């Protein structure tokens, strides 16, 4: 029986902050991102790191390819997967918001929304009593209202700089986003002896 713990970590921005947090509780992964390896083993901790796209971390954890992971609340909201969301790590804070050109009302007929988060956007506008159409985009979402493709965008805002520099304004905030510690439902039970102390230690550092 494998008693190692596999952790899915998001590559990029969140990784550094997450690694700093894990270092505080005794697991030092701070210099691993230099390499291009996707799976890294740490026999001293009996841990294996999987480096994944932030959007994919939750998928690996749901299917049990990783026991636990660190994922943004934005991804959890969008994908609605069967994982335990046990801790708010309070790192990489930002929020999901609706933005668009200033003083431009939503069009009356089939307003269009560009987003990387089709599910979150549809849900949000439905709750507001608006039926909208989603235009899925993968990046530089701010382009869409600028060139008249959509009325609004739904996207992550951290400093608001990208919006400002492109002459867009924020209309409504949808949800605050931070990174969460997530656990596969089976690992949560079967490996509780390894995972519980990590949760306890992490919660004391937050």
């Amino acid at each position, binding site marked *: 029986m*494998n008693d190692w713990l596999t952790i899915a970590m998001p590559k990029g921005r969140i990784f550094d902050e997450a690694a700093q947090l894990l270092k505080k509780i005794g697991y030092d992964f701070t210099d691993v991102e230099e390499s291009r390896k996707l799976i890294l083993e740490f026999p001293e901790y009996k841990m294996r790191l999987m480096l994944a796209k932030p959007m994919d971390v939750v998928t690996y954890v749901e*299917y049990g390819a990783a026991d636990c992971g660190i994922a943004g609340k934005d991804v959890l909201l969008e994908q609605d997967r*069967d994982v335990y*969301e*046990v801790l708010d790590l309070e790192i990489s804070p930002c929020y999901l918001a609706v933005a668009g050109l200033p003083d431009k009302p939503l069009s009356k007929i089939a307003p269009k929304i560009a987003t990387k988060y089709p599910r979150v956007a549809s849900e949000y506008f439905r709750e507001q009593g608006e039926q909208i159409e989603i235009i899925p985009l993968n990046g530089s979402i701010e382009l869409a209202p600028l060139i008249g493709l959509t009325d609004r965008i739904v996207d992550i805002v951290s400093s608001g700089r990208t919006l400002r520099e492109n002459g867009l304004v924020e209309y409504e905030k949808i949800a605050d986003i931070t990174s*969460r510690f997530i656990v596969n*439902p*089976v690992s949560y039970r*079967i490996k509780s002896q390894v995972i519980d102390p990590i949760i306890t230690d992490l919660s004391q550092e937050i």
Partner: protein
Amino acid sequence: MANRLMFEKPLGMRDTLPFFYNQKRKAREALSNAIESWGYQFLDTPMLEYLETVGEASAIDETQLFKLLDQQGHTLVLRPDMTAPIARVAASQLKEQGFPVRLAYDGPVFRAQQIEGGKPAQFEQVGVEYIGENSIYADAEVIALQVQTLKEAGLDHFQLTVGHIGYVKGLLKEIFGDDQETSELFLRFLYRKNYVGFRKALQDTDISKEDQDRLKQLLSLRGEEDVLSTAKNITKNGACHEAIHELQQLHEILESYGVTEYVSYDLNLISHMSYYSGILFEGYAPELGSLLCNGGRYDQLLPSFQTEASATGFAVRLDRLVEAVNQQNAENNRTLILFDDRSFQKALKEAKDLRGEGSRVVLQHRNNIEEKALQNEEFTKLIDLSEGGADHE
């Protein structure tokens, strides 16, 4: 729409090829023999049922149902589980026999996959329903039989986690009183496994600090039997104490059955928002990323078929069981020994030895096997005694 290619199947539908078929058959037989030896009787029900009866009584969400129309325009469903059809049979045809009845089934159930693959939309369940007895002995029998069946199927490492919906609901009612909406909100957070949301929502309530702490504690009420007394101590509520008392009795009976090493307790286990009414459990194997089996007491199902009877039962996912057994049980593995003309004697001896130890061994001349067959992952171990091979001396 583009024409389908010849090899395509609907999303989530899978073929069972001979190797896996054989393994499934063996696992099914092992489970059935164990279940029959406890006096349960097997039955079968139709694949198609009415949406308004079995479809609506089922614990499975309507969005996961495969629906079709019969020639009279009635909506039919492919059965999404076996519990609801069996409750229908028990409520109509078996009622005259007198309760309790012990029934069992094995058969395919259907749950549509909407987003992606990775999960089958048709899979086989083997399970039991113990209908018409509301005693702790019935709950214990079902859990003990669950352990027995898994062991008989060749699974050595697994864990059953037992909870009690009465405890969670009792605690929520004690704290939120008749404010069912708030109770439901917190129950949903538990069901959705969203502990972060649970804690945040607590801060937004106007309940006392002490009550907030008690609900936070609920999130960590899991572990061995001693967690039951911890759980008891955080409340004076009658419903909660009754639930704990039931779990403690259950533990004693499971001790007599000798199965407690497989059992742990978890008081925030919520397998379904409304289906279960008492003791419930889930089973896990370390090799699987998702549930192996689950079960529990469901006293509200038979009344929806106009029969007052309580019931409990379990269902095992046969496909997942086979996957776990394969990984745990080396007996299912096959070793391939490659030889050439020179190393035949040695290979033969090696094969004899391994076969003597109970392994399944294929003895194969190196030149006569295709590269593709060599990559075949059905061979779990390769011993290459041919010239240039890894084990060549």
